[in-house]
Structures are given as structure tokens and as C-alpha cells.
């Protein structure tokens, strides 16, 4: 049996991973709430943010590159929405999803082309990798910063959605797309803002994730993306606190499963098993609103 500090270490790394999933999951859940679209490209936006950082840091210091990465990722997200999803606004939902899969394929191939398919070392941001000793457990600064920053961002986001005009518009659009349009809400602006927020959070997550992980490769976005989506479904799609709690549960479980030698293969499979159980027994997730199907 291991010591208590071993389990604390696992718990902490689970919380870190969970925070990152939470940041990505918010992007999924907001887009799904408004467009009813599983944005398969979201995981790849996260990956692209990693590469932006790698390439910007060849010419400037990481601290200067950081805000630029955030801005570029946001632009990329909005661009994708304008180019690939907006023309299909009236098309069946399946076409939009196929378009999202196409974008994901495109981004992965683009990254493979630019990098030559190799993993690149992620630039180190000064100070983040220093370790500190907390009792018997030694932790990175990043392990502490990640959950704190995540919670902070989530609180800001919830305030934004509940107390500002654009937040109210978002809630209205996610409740009823067409009526909101009739009420004079500019749908396209709302959708753009959704993508801005989603991409921004994905960029933040990418900085934290890759600083921890050390390298970026073209296919790396798919798995965290899918897991974050599962977290969003688990928490009840469309609900931000739900997505965050779902992400923490998945992150912690995954960290413990990965540590077990016999079952470590199942760390990804577990996430999907959880998804299927949720869909079967509580299709609206933990905090989701009940949807009624109209004939």
C-alpha cells in the first residue's frame, strides 16, 4: 500500500487535469447550448493554441507571447465559426456536425504539415515549473495555479452570463433560437461571443496543459477534447457549473485509474463508459434542464 502523500499527489494531479477539462468543457457546453452542435474542432483549437505558443516563442519572450496566443486563438475560433458553421445555419444538424469533423481534420492536417508531424517542445514560462513543498507533498506552481485560475474564470463567466446584457442574450438564444431572433437579438453576434469565450478558455487551458505536459503534437487535441465533451454531457449540457463539476470528477477518476497498472489502459475508456451510463440513466446530465421533443 502507498502512503497518504501518494494519494494526495494523485488527487492534486487529478484536480489539475480536471480544471483543464473544465476550461475546455465550457467551450463545448456553451456552443452546444446555443447551436446544438458538438464542436468537434474545439479540441483542435486547443492544440493550435499550443502551437501558436511554440512558434511565437521562437521570436519573443513567453510573457509577451502569452497575450498574443490568447488573441490569435480567439481569432481562429471566430474565423472557424464564420467560415464553417455560419453558412450551414439553416442546414440540418448533421451537416453542421460533419462540417465540424471536417474542420478538425483540416486543423490536424495543417498542424502536421507545418510541424512535419513531430512533437515540439513547449516553451517554459518562467516560474510556473518551480516546485514548493507542502508538508510531505511537493507540488508545481502550475498545480496550484490551474484550479485557482479555473475557478476564478468560471466565476467571472457565470457573473457575465447572469448579470450582463450579452449574457442575457446568450441565455435567451439557448432557450429558443428563433424567438430570440424575433425579439431583436443579433444571433450572429451572440454566437461570435460564445466562440470568443470558448476559444479564450481553450487557449488558457492549452497554456496550462502544455506547460505541465512539456510538448505539443498535431493529434494531441482530440482526446482532451472528447473528454471535455463527456464532462459537459455529464454535468448536463448547457450548464456551466455542471460542466465544471463533471470535469473535476472525470479528472480525478482518470488520475487514479492511470496510477493503477492493470487498468491504466482504461483511462480513456472509463470516460466513455461514464458517458454512456449518464446518457442511459440521466440523459440530461447532473444539472441539465429537461428537454421536451416537439413533434
Amino acid at each position, binding site marked *: 500500500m502507498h502512503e497518504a502523500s501518494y494519494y494526495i499527489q494523485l488527487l492534486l494531479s487529478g484536480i489539475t487535469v480536471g480544471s483543464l477539462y473544465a476550461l475546455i468543457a465550457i467551450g463545448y457546453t456553451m456552443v452546444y447550448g446555443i447551436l*446544438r452542435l*458538438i464542436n468537434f474542432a474545439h479540441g483542435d483549437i486547443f492544440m493550435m493554441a499550443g502551437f501558436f505558443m511554440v512558434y511565437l516563442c521562437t521570436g519573443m519572450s513567453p510573457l509577451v507571447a502569452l497575450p498574443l496566443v490568447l488573441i490569435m486563438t480567439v481569432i481562429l475560433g471566430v474565423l472557424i465559426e464564420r467560415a464553417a458553421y455560419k453558412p450551414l445555419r439553416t442546414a440540418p444538424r448533421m*451537416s453542421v456536425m460533419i462540417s465540424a469533423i*471536417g*474542420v478538425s481534420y483540416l486543423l490536424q*492536417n495543417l498542424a502536421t504539415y507545418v510541424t512535419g508531424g513531430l512533437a515540439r517542445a513547449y516553451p517554459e514560462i518562467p516560474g510556473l515549473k518551480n516546485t514548493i513543498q507542502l508538508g510531505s507533498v511537493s507540488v508545481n506552481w502550475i498545480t496550484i495555479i490551474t484550479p485557482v485560475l479555473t475557478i476564478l474564470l468560471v466565476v467571472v463567466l457565470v457573473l457575465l452570463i447572469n448579470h450582463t446584457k450579452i449574457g442575457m442574450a446568450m441565455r435567451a438564444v439557448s432557450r429558443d433560437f428563433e424567438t430570440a431572433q424575433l425579439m431583436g437579438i443579433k444571433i450572429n453576434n451572440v454566437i461570435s461571443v460564445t466562440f470568443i469565450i470558448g476559444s479564450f478558455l481553450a487557449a488558457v487551458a492549452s497554456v496550462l496543459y502544455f506547460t505541465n505536459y512539456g510538448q505539443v503534437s498535431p493529434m494531441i487535441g482530440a482526446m482532451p477534447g472528447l473528454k471535455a465533451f463527456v464532462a459537459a454531457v455529464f454535468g448536463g449540457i448547457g450548464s456551466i457549473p455542471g460542466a465544471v463539476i463533471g470535469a473535476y470528477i472525470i479528472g480525478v477518476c482518470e488520475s487514479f485509474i492511470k496510477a493503477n497498472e492493470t487498468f491504466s489502459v482504461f483511462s480513456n475508456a472509463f470516460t466513455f*463508459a461514464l*458517458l454512456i451510463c449518464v446518457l442511459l440513466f440521466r440523459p440530461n446530465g447532473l444539472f441539465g434542464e429537461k428537454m421536451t421533443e416537439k413533434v
Partner: protein
Amino acid sequence: MKNKKFLIVSLILAAVCIVGVLYVNANMRYSMLASVLQKGAIYALVAVALNLLNGFTGLFSLGQAGFMMLGAYTYAILTIPVAERIAVYQYFDGGIIQFCLPMAVGLVLAGIVPMLFAWLIGKPVLKLKSDYLAIATLGFAEIMRAIIQWKNLGPLTNSSNLLKRFANYENILFPMVVSAVCIAIIVLMINSTYGRAFKAIRDDEIAAEAMGINLAKHKMIAFMTSAFFAGIGGALLAMFQSSVQAAAFTSAMTYEILLIVVIGGIGSVTGSVMGAFLFVACSEWWLRFLDDPLPYLGVQIPFMRGGFRMLVFSVVIMVVVLFFRKGIMGDKELPDLWKKRPKKALKKASKKEVA
């Protein structure tokens, strides 16, 4: 009369194709053309199987790679000669299966095993709606992949190591004929009462149910049939590559097959077949020159280096997805293109009469 003519034309075309393939087999067995023909045929079968679900029944499934993997593994595990097992299962003392089935039996079982899994999975999952179904089937494919790679199942599946040296075909006509027969069976099914029920479910579930179609039963039949043929496609793919490894059957493979269906036209069998050959030929052969940094006609073209091919290819796919949403065929079949003509002639004739 028309039917007879159509039959004769298609028989002649089939004969020409067979002669062509035999020629390729005899003279350029290891050329790019031969490999595109084989892989294209295999992808055509898998794409048509997926189209049966996505295009004809309206069930958006993303589990195709998972079923292919099950088929490939079933076939490979059952047809490795007993003498070779020690070498293949080198880390697991030759594995636990100590018999070898003939190729044909292995191929049929490669369809039946995924079909049984589809039955198990379908029971709970088919109740889900559109995109939830997609993500649940995708999840099942990933779970299955993890189970096959599990160390404790090593004696059966060889864990994450390669399976190889199983029974294989000599003539490249084999995968093409198998896939043609399977596609023909799917077409027969689509044209039967089952097929009409599938289309009714796709167009309006509630109306279909009101017309007395058993939704659960028909969805299950479509799902199991699709899994059966995906499994056979997987087995053929295993033979084509002469090795199997679970790591290859990722969700990226499912996406590729889905994109083939989209390029060919959702709801068109001939479209899927053409899409498959086009997709394989473009991605593996025709666009290869884009990866080549060598100068053309003395001009060094910038951007052309490894990976550019796939980038151009994915841009083309995005253009199809965005601007040619119907794909090559829409929901029409190839013979429909000829059938149109007599109708127009009839209309003209009737107009003349009126005049």
C-alpha cells in the same frame, strides 16, 4: 426491355472490370493502382455499410472503426495457423486459441462477432437521439479498443502487439469480389420492404411509427447489418495490410469513412462506392506529387513538402462539405442518371399532344 438492357450493360461492365483487375493482378501486383483498387474496394464496403445507417436509416453512428476492428481481430485470431502462433503470440506463450479455421469461415465470423456486439450495444444506445447516439457509438469504439489492448486479454488478442501471418488472399480480385457481393446484398436490402421502412424512419420517425413500423426492431436490424458488413470490411483490411493492430482503428478512421459517405452523397450507394475510390486514390496516389519537394519543369514550387497533400485534401473536403453539400450523387444512384431521360421524352411527347 429496359431492365434486360440494363442487365446486359452491367454484366458487360462487370466483365470488363474483372478482366482489368486480373490484368493488374498479373502484371502490376504491387503497383499503386493495385493497392488503390484493393483499399478502395474495402473502404467502399465499409462506407456503404455506414451509409446504410447514416444515409438510409438516419442513425448518426460513429462506431464504424470499432466494428471494423472487431471484425479484423476476429478474423486474424481465428485464422493464424497453429504452427505460427508461438511466433505471433511471443509474449503470451502462443495464446489460448490452438486451432485454425478456414478463411471463408473466419470471414463470416468476422461479420457475425461485430454483429453480436452491435446487438448488445444497440439495445441501450439506439434509444438516444442524433448527436448523443453519435458520441455514444464513438465512445463504444474507444472502449472496445481499450479492451483489446488490455494486457490481461493478451493470450486472446495479443494485447497491443501486432497480429500477423493469418490466412491471406493471393489475387487482388478477392477483396473486390467479396466487397461487391456484400454491397449487392446491402442494395437488395435497401430495395426490400426493410429498406423502405429504414427510409421512412429517416424521413420522420413519428410518422413511421404511426404507419406501423416497429422503430426499435428496424433500427436494430440496420445497426446489426451495418456492423456485420463493417466487420467483413475490417477483416479484408486486415488481409490487405497483412497485419492488425488496435491502435490503427481510431476515431480518425471513422471520420475518414464518414467523409467518404459525405463526398459520395449521403443516401447513395453508388456515390459511396465512387467516393471511396476517389478518396483512396486522391489521398494515397494522385495527390502524392504535392508531398514532393522536387522542382517541376525547373520551377521550385513553395509549400510543397511532406504533409501538403493531406492539407490540400482536407481543404477540398471542406469545400465539398460547405458548398457541395449533396456530394457527388446526392441521394441518387448511378442508374438513375439514365432513367431520367425517358421521362423527359415522355413529357415532351405529352406536350406535343396537347399542342
